[in-house]
């Protein structure tokens, strides 16, 4: 058990290290750096000495390996560095957007699970009836249409038809104005949740249908339990492992999805910060934000594994 936790931690650390290496390399492969990004074409007018001085100032002059390990060293000691664009510490820069993205992801996930499990269960219990057909149809749409199309469609529709665009006054946090905040978060979350809900719905439906053909379901029916008990205590409980797996995968994708949706709905989350930082070649910020996304992904995976052992006693023995 203890050994398992240690191994788990090590592999998480290794994953995160791998991610930072990849991001670092990819960033260095992008043409340009913080100097060219802030000066634009005028960077070409700099003398060699000026360029060298600026490169030194932004910390992009040293060999790449050196840059990487100095970034890694300070990150490990809790110092995420300083933004090249705004000269603010990355840790301050990242704080507020992190909360926005977490709220967005949480609301999207809750909506997605409700939609997915709800339609999935209804469909599996009465396959072929109209609610099942509706669910199946919606799920095809949800899976086939990318979130940026749904998102832009929603924004256009709401703002042009209803003149409703809660983000127009700029973002407000939940503490400032909970009602406005929820309106601002709801539609981007809904956009994200359709794809998630569709995937979870299909998994739920298939898993419940499979379980309903198994012997122990017959045993439960044969001992006279109520339909409700049969559905939740036997069918749903046994379908839970694939449902949790799919939800975990979707939550992972969701982190990527927020980048696009935040852009469309003008939400100042991590995704927006990431896009602007890439444009500015603001390497420390990009690196930290991707690392946060990667950490989120790894943590979700770990939580899924923990959930398995809670749901299924057969996975506990080792």
């Amino acid at each position, binding site marked *: 058990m203890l050994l398992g936790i240690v191994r788990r931690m090590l592999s998480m650390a290794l994953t995160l290290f791998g991610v930072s290496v990849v991001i670092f390399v990819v960033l260095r492969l992008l043409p340009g750096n913080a100097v060219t990004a802030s000066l634009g074409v005028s960077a070409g007018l700099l003398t060699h000495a000026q360029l060298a001085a600026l490169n030194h100032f932004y910390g992009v002059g040293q060999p790449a390996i050196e840059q990487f390990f100095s970034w890694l060293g300070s990150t490990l000691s809790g110092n995420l560095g300083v933004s090249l664009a705004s000269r603010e510490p990355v840790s301050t820069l990242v704080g507020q957007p992190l909360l926005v993205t977490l709220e967005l992801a949480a609301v999207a996930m809750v909506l997605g699970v409700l939609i997915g499990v709800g339609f999935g269960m209804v469909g599996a219990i009465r396959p072929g009836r109209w609610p099942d057909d509706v669910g199946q149809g919606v799920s095809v749409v949800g899976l086939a249409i990318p979130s940026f199309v749904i998102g832009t469609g929603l924004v256009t529709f709401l703002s042009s038809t209803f003149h409703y665009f809660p983000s127009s006054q700029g973002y407000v946090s939940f503490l400032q104005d909970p009602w406005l905040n929820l309106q601002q978060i709801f539609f981007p979350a809904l956009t994200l949740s359709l794809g998630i809900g569709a995937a979870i719905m299909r998994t739920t439906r298939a898993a419940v249908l499979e379980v309903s*053909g198994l012997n122990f379901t017959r045993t439960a*029916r044969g*001992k006279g339990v109520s339909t409700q008990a049969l559905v939740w*205590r036997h069918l749903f409980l046994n379908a839970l492992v694939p449902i949790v797996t799919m939800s975990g995968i979707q939550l992972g994708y969701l982190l990527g999805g927020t980048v696009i949706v935040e852009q469309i709905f003008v939400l100042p989350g991590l995704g927006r910060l990431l896009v602007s930082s890439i444009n500015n070649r603001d390497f420390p910020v990009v690196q930290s934000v991707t690392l946060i996304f990667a950490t989120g992904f790894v943590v979700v995976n770990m939580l899924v594994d923990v959930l398995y052992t809670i749901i299924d006693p057969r996975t506990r023995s080792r």
Partner: protein
Amino acid sequence: MSGPVLSIRGLRVGIRGRRGVEEIVRGVDLDVASAEKVGVVGESGSGKTLTMLSVLQLLPSPPLAVLGGRVLLDGEDLLTADARRLREVRGGEVAMVYQDPMSSLNPLTRVGRQIVEALRAHGTGDKVARARTREVLGEVGLPHPDRIERAFPHELSGGMLQRVMIAMALATSPKVLVADEPTTALDVTIQQQILELVSRLQASTSMSVVWVTHDLGVVAQLVDRVVVMYAGRVVERAPTHRLFAAPTHPYTAALLASLPGPEIGHRRPLHQIGGTPPDPSRLGAGCPFRARCPYAEQRCAEHEPELEERGAGSFAACWKDPGAWAR
């Protein structure tokens, strides 16, 4: 004399496919008296399990469906009962034990809870249900019921799980216990223990038992009466001792001949019934056993025989009298 507790009349079960309905159980009659033990014997595919699953409407439907007939429990037709009444009967008045105990219990729930669930579904309070669960686990001969009830199915052996299944079925004191090949998945010594257990438990109550099996040897030591099924029909029905002493249907006779004898050293080759059971979609008009029957003649191919009395409580569906078997 009061009527039978459970009475199946003209039961027909079919599978709905693309080419219409294929009948697999073709008009089965079966009576079970109070406290009686009846064995239902037949090869795989003879329709014995489908017949018994139909009693509680546990057929996997679709594609299987009851096409006709009646299932009477104390005179009340269960096939037309509403959902609520059916739930009362299931596990309350008629309980079932299934073939494969390893897959017949919910793998994610402690076995004790599953027995409690059966009791609570029939109106027992939680506290009483828990006490009864421990009691009944002890009755089926499981050591340390307090530990067993907290076990998950994967932590118990097949024999223990079948005892749990029996405990679950008996917890509500049903009128009829239907055991569908409960020992097939278990090894021989465990099989023997389960048989003895059911005999012992049945003797102390007025419960009726229907024991479905493909093994005549199993029914010999347990049941009062045997019903032999072939290709979805009852071909012979007789008190156990009569059936073994003087079978009145060639299929029963062939089954008996294929039983291994108790003799050690004196080896004889086991008799084998040639051919395979007929495909239910191609039965035709005659007796379904004719292709494998050593005594078949012209009329066997033309008309299917009905069940007829052969004396001393025996019934057989065969054109020929056992006296005429000897050539």
